[in-house]
């Protein structure tokens, strides 16, 4: 697995198919690119530096023994290197990105224009509060929108991602249990159709995870849930709509039974894109829910920027929200940064330096204000419509796992591939040759060979028709017995099928000079 500096002859990782050999390994204008360290040419530099004065090789008690190892390249070499790397990246700006539960929607350019306004882009978190009143007003306004849209009384703004928001919510729950002297509650119920981060978060917070099976309709098995309730249950972590792309119709009964048993109701809000403007989680009995601004509210993610995961909280949990928060103070705004200034509140601590992902707050609020209440409602409606359009376009050739209609994403399994010799993984690789980033594979685990497709509302009908046409064609080809073309896929990419097993068992995570020589 050492990286070869020889560019020739790459691209034959998988046998079969019609691999095309080129002299240098370039394929069309998809250019091979060696690591920047492999392009090192001693003495090359983008700038003409004066000869450095003699410098000591010692800093304190440390002495430098080898060369520093920075590669020497000219400016055009560096520019081409990073441009070529960027072109190997697939991005939402290039096409459909149908990863289920990831909500890879378009990132509006208006958001980007607003966030680059000098007054916002140049603000620093350590500026005196009186000089950043606009920024604090913006955080307060966004918090207001989040509370209105969810019907919840409070929100913690600082979590920096979805799973960070989960951590925040579960720490609030733990603090609330401790505060009421109920610390023996340590069991957290997590349905099988929840996001994979949910059990991880519960375990991270010191709870034990107790899974709840799904019923034949892909929803929480209500009888199994009720049987698991008890005085040691701290919380339920429910994803709604769940990872089968289905609304949990018993959610109100689930919430009231859980509350009656003394537990708190955590809802994973990663799929809020299906509900925004239509359903308020506060009306469903939820105690806390994180909101992925980088999903529902269109801020970039998947390599395009950091996430942001504010957590809305019920009256019971609000006093335990982490520092800091914005408060109205006279004519302006102030920040509560210390427990001593928190009044009756009992914050569990602090999750993050400063106040949260300001750049994401600006983009999310720009998105909300440009859409308005009616526009956000249409977001949810169109997201659900698009997913059902995909479902309707494919249900006769692929196997839909649970009866529709679905919400914002549609779950297929591999029953339609039975006997074809083609697996979900093979099918996904063949999609790449057709110009499509694969959907989420093998998750959720409740069905065999899962394929979870979330088109989002930002795809046009024409775009969805093209996707459906490709998927229908692939399904027909698999059923016609052409397994070889799937097993040898992808055939048109710079690299063929990667050895994911070897990559996981013996990962090579950094380049080493000795390995290359």
């Amino acid at each position, binding site marked *: 697995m050492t990286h070869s500096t020889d560019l020739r002859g790459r691209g034959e990782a998988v046998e079969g198919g019609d691999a095309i050999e080129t002299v240098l390994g370039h394929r069309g204008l998809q250019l091979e690119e060696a690591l920047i360290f492999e392009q090192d040419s001693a003495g090359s530099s983008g700038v003409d530096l004066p000869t450095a004065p003699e410098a000591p090789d010692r800093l304190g008690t440390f002495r430098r023994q080898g060369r520093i190892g920075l590669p020497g390249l000219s400016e055009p070499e560096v520019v081409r290197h990073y441009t070529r790397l960027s072109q190997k990246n697939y991005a939402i700006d290039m096409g459909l990105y149908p990863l289920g539960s990831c909500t890879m929607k378009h990132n509006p350019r208006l958001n980007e224009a607003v966030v680059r306004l000098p007054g916002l882009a140049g603000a620093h978190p350590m500026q005196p509060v009186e000089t950043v009143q606009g920024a604090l007003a913006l955080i307060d306004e966004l918090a207001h929108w989040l509370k209105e849209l969810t019907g919840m009384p409070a929100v913690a703004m600082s979590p920096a991602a979805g799973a960070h928001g989960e951590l925040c919510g579960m720490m609030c729950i733990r603090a609330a249990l401790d505060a009421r002297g109920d610390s023996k509650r340590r069991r957290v119920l997590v349905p099988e159709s929840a996001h994979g981060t949910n059990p991880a978060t519960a375990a991270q917070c010191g709870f034990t995870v107790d899974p709840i099976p799904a019923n034949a309709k892909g929803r929480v098995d209500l009888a199994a849930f009720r049987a698991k309730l008890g005085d040691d249950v701290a919380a339920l972590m429910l994803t709604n709509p769940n990872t089968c792309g289905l609304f949990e119709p018993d959610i109100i009964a689930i919430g009231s039974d859980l509350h009656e048993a003394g537990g708190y109701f955590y809802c994973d809000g990663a799929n809020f894109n299906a509900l925004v403007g239509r359903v308020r989680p506060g009306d469903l009995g939820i105690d806390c829910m994180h909101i992925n601004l980088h999903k529902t509210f269109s801020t970039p993610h998947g390599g395009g920027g950091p996430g942001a995961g504010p957590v809305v909280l019920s009256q019971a949990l609000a006093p335990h929200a982490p520092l800091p928060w914005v408060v109205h103070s006279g004519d302006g705004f102030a920040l509560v940064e210390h427990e001593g200034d928190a009044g009756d509140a009992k914050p569990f601590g602090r999750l993050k330096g400063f106040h949260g992902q300001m750049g994401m707050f600006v983009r999310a609020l720009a998105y909300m204000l440009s859409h308005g209440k009616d526009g956000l409602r249409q977001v949810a409606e169109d997201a659900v419509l698009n997913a059902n359009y995909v479902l309707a376009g494919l249900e006769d050739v692929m196997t839909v796992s649970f009866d529709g209609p679905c919400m914002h994403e549609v779950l297929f399994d591999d029953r339609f591939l039975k006997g074809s010799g083609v697996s979900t*993984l093979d099918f996904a690789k063949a999609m790449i040759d057709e110009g499509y980033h694969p959907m989420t*594979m093998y998750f959720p*685990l409740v069905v065999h060979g899962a394929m979870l497709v979330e088109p989002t509302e930002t795809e046009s009908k024409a775009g969805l028709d093209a996707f459906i046409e490709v998927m229908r064609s692939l399904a027909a080809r698999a059923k016609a017995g052409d397994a070889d073309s799937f097993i040898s896929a992808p055939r048109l990419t710079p690299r063929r099928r990667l050895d994911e*097993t070897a990559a*996981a*068992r013996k990962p090579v995570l950094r380049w080493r000079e000795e390995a290359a020589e």
Partner: protein
Amino acid sequence: MSDMKYTTDHEWIRVEGDSGVIGITDYAQEQLGDVVFVDLPDVGKNLSKGDEAAVVESVKAAAEVYAPLDGAVLEINEALTDAPGLVNTDPVGGGWFLKLQISDPGQLDGMMDEAGYADYVKGLG
């Protein structure tokens, strides 16, 4: 192999006197795909039937291996740390997970024998 017993969660146990060697079945490894990591319990840990005994991670999924009966962990298969692929290539031999001191042999009675497990797997389609 008359001394092999099976659970509905696709674990096997081979009884050797008052201890039992535990692993996952060929069907289970087939479903998981290539195993890339196995997390084993500490020797001496007391497990109750149904407790999470180990975690197995493949290229497709992570799954728990449950203790098929009560007992203390006598030994773990250290070879899986460097060669998790043994679970795929030799699930009922070199791919064993752990050895348990059986504290209640009566718990074996409720488990399937080889023929019963074969029928059970057939029923899963």
